């Protein structure tokens, strides 16, 4: 896990509108210097402008705000930290709508706009009980050429190498040409982006090459959380069935993370070449194409350490599923129940949604529970339906008790639990799928 934290700039100002031009100029020029194009830099600047203005409105003028802008090769990260306690995260719901008659809501509209200008926006607890807003704007990359630049041929003798940028571009182009889109991540459509991800340490890649330099196969992986690594592939190019390349690539990947903090290695987009003997079958997710044809994809998992046992928080309605999965996988888990005993709840819940149009897919994650969980979920589903997205998933972290409060609304809305990913988050994760 050697992520390139890149070059960084920071600016500290006060929550006064007089500082706004300084903030916007800092973010815009920083973004341009870090390689974003003008359109991207402008979008990021507008997002920061909206957030800074909002912070000025809701806090006293003596509050300090620190803006940190850093380059992570394929994206520009802007982090805004401020000791504000009354931040309305509800506005980040995909379904948030602002009433024209409500002045407070109008004031907050800027936040909603900000969230739409960037590729990712996360809100977390910052220093001194304040908030930390992280805005990500990715660089633009051209799509891969349709023309293959490599002629696949069988490689009888091979060695494993870390592919250099040009080879990596050929590999990602070949993957796109030879594999269906549901078997590789969206980033593979942009080979230049994959190169930047690998060079920046976000992805790691291994290729099997023959004596003449021809590529027989490749495997890529990246850290999806502090405890979990996800791998893609192995992808083989022109190799006979049963080629040793898959096994060697997989063992090298496992060896590379064997002494790291990774507790699990997952393969959620498994190719036929994935050596099944290294993995456990977690269950299946069904991916539907635009015509509604479903393809069942098995989620595979490999534990990287001997399991020391763990707690899993659980809503009673999820218990039968969890017990059957833990029993099948021989997972040592103590199930703890979350029950509503009348304590005061927040009126509003917050959900984050990651939409991947190329995969016809949306993944919802809870940010905060609240009394309106059912309505909020239905609102999101209705919006996603309008977007014609066929595959909707919900990821619940069983290490975070309040997240399990979404169980009943999920089941009521047509979701069903499909897969448990051990140690996928703070604890195990359950992936729910809508209507499958």
């Amino acid at each position, binding site marked *: 896990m050697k992520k390139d934290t890149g070059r960084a700039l920071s600016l500290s100002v006060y929550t006064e509108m007089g500082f706004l031009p300084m903030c916007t100029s800092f973010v815009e020029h920083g973004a341009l210097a870090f390689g974003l194009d003008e359109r991207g830099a402008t979008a990021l600047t507008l997002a920061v402008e909206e957030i800074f203005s909002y912070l000025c409105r809701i806090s006293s003028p003596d509050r300090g705000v620190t803006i940190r802008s850093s380059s992570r090769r394929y994206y520009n990260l802007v982090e805004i930290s401020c000791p504000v306690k009354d931040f309305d995260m509800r506005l980040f719901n995909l379904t948030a709508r602002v009433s024209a008659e409500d002045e407070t809501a109008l004031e907050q509209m800027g936040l909603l706009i900000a969230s739409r200008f960037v590729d990712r926006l996360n809100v977390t607890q910052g220093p001194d009980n304040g908030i930390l807003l992280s805005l990500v704007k990715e660089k633009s990359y051209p799509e891969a050429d349709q023309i293959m630049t490599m002629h696949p041929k069988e490689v009888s003798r091979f060695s494993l190498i870390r592919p250099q940028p040009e080879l990596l571009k050929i590999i990602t182009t070949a993957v796109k040409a030879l594999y269906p889109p549901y078997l590789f991540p969206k980033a593979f459509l942009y080979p230049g982006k994959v190169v930047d991800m690998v060079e920046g340490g976000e992805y790691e890649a291994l290729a099997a090459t023959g004596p003449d330099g021809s590529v027989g196969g490749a495997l890529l992986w990246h850290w999806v959380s502090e405890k979990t690594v996800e791998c893609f592939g192995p992808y083989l190019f022109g190799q006979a069935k049963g080629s040793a390349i898959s096994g060697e690539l997989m063992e090298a990947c496992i060896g590379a993370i064997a*002494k790291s903090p990774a507790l699990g290695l997952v393969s959620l987009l498994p190719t036929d070449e994935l050596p099944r*003997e*290294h993995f456990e079958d977690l269950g299946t997710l069904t991916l539907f194409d635009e015509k509604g044809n479903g393809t069942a994809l098995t989620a595979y998992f*490999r*534990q990287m*350490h*001997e399991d*020391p046992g763990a707690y899993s928080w659980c809503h009673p309605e999820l218990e039968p599923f969890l017990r059957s999965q833990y029993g099948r996988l021989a997972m*040592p888990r*103590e199930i703890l129940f979350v029950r509503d005993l009348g304590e005061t709840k927040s009126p509003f819940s917050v959900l984050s949604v990651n939409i991947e149009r190329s995969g016809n897919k949306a993944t919802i994650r809870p940010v905060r529970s609240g009394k309106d969980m059912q309505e909020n979920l239905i609102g999101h589903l209705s919006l996603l339906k309008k977007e014609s997205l066929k595959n909707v998933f919900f990821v619940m972290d069983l290490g975070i008790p309040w997240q399990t409060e979404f169980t009943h609304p999920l089941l009521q809305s047509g979701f069903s639990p499909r897969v448990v990913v051990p140690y996928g988050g703070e604890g195990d994760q359950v992936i729910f799928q809508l209507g499958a």
Partner: protein
Amino acid sequence: MHAPQLDRLVPEYIKRFEPYIPSKPDNELKKLYGCKRLLRLNNNENPLGPPPAARDVIDGFPPPAASVYPSGDAYYLRYKLAEKFGLHPDQFLVGNGANEVITFVIKAFCQEGDNIVTADKTFAVYEWVAEFSGFDARLVPLKDFGFDDAGMLRTIDNRTKLIFVCNPNNPTGTYWSREKLLRFLDVVDGRQIVVLDEAYFEFVEKEDFPDGMALMESYPNLVVFRTFSKMYALAGLRIGYLAGSREVVDIIRRTCVVYSVNSLAQQAALATLEDGEHITRTRRMVREGRNFLERELGRLELSFVSGEGNYLMLRLPMSDTLAYRKFMTRGIMIRSMTGFRFPNYIRITISHMEAMEAFIEALEAILAEMPDRRP
């Protein structure tokens, strides 16, 4: 009060280092996995327990003696070791398990920019101690499951201070013969300290297996590790030692934490050296267990690596960490080998026949659950 500025306070090499999480106590594991018994086949412990003389020492340890500091440098034990091996008492350093003496050696010889050389798939503590001390651990891939002497020699540079050779290797059981070791030591020619970890020395019956203790006079850059944890079954008391030339041990002693070895451990260890029968009995048990395992694994068509030491490594047609959980639910604790960079291998401590039969029975049941191995 502000939170500590860990980002500034913690060295980069510590930030990168992943702590080792030991297993939970047996009773906790039994609760977690829902098993009534637990056969420990994971740590290469000797199920026969300590030799009788050491048991007597443990049984008779007077509680008031616990209030008195132990001998700070294991005085009587070093004299006894010197007598046994025909060396000088100052050629020995006793530590709180062999792990502690590994730390002494690395601290004594390495400074910023230095490195150690060892194998990629061997006892992990050499690599760990080097890395969390800020030194580079250069790992040479095993060749045919054994330490690659030529590869190690190629890896050495002028900042290499220590070469660690685990002989026999844990977990593969391969070893360097006396001839191969001498050839290696001749090429190194005193430029580095060569550490020969002989934790499993007492289990080996092969005639060409070298005795490091007998080589120190000819090779004063040789340091030998031995332990009372394995053959002598004192793992719970934590006691091991190193031996070397007086000049080298004098340097290592400067980094040695005195009083780290408790009185009971010192006295029990001293008593083990009197008993020759214990080694014979243990070797017989290991021989029988190994023969049984090799035969049964062959019948199950599983490949295995069986060499010296009281362990054997086998390859499963499934993830070793999944196998660990499945064995645990059946009350058998094995060591998964992913952490040793041997994915899908497990290591089994060779134990008494009852345990070996239970292991094979569980293994067959686990294999039968696999979809493609069902009859």
